[in-house]
């Protein structure tokens, strides 16, 4: 069966510090990978998605970037955090590009990021 790991679970970082959140998926190949941010009262916001190694699409211009160095690894980064980067970050995967694109997303347990 497929599993998704996301870490750390919680993180407190000062303004201006760098960020690296990591997500890995097991039990599937060539998944589509996603980074979402969830803010209270604003719902789930898609930040980045990837259909393959090195292929990253950004949905929202911002202080963050994403990379996919391996097929089942997805990393969210920032060089300098802003207060507005605080939030709940979720990684997700779905069945890869050959399958119907309306297959469901499967989420990790998220990282609660607080920028102080």
């Amino acid at each position, binding site marked *: 069966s497929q599993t998704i790991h*996301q870490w750390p679970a919680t993180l407190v970082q000062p303004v201006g510090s760098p960020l690296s959140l990591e997500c890995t998926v097991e039990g599937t190949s060539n998944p*589509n990978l*996603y980074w979402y941010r969830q803010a209270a*009262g*604003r*719902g*789930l916001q*898609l930040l980045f*998605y990837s*259909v393959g190694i090195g292929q990253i*699409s950004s*949905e929202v211009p911002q202080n963050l970037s994403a990379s996919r160095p391996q097929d089942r690894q997805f990393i969210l980064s920032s060089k300098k955090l802003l207060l507005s980067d605080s939030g709940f970050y*979720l990684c*997700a995967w*779905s069945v890869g590009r050959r399958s119907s*694109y*309306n*297959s*469901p*997303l*499967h*989420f*990790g*347990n*998220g990282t*609660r990021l607080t920028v102080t």
Partner: protein
Amino acid sequence: EDQVTQSPEALRLQEGESSSLNCSYTVSGLRGLFWYRQDPGKGPEFLFTLYSAGEEKEKERLKATLTKKESFLHITAPKPEDSATYLCAAASDNAGNNRKLIWGLGTSLAVNP
């Protein structure tokens, strides 16, 4: 503009008191309607996908239905462990290859023993 609206925002039930959650959608060419359950501090857990009006799916005490304008999540004889936030999301023809789902803000359900 594609939009998904969930109601009510919050719902409190007594154990065993059945009810329904609503998800109204306005999307161009619905490709799929998804229901998720989210516990506090956790990621959303996939429940159901509905593809066409008239379709129904069931899982334990939950049943999801779909019409051309809305979806309902019926909860029969709920238990305290059903307490969670329930999210719905729609995939439309406008989503393109990025699979950008349109998400509702969720219904927070509390079931009292």
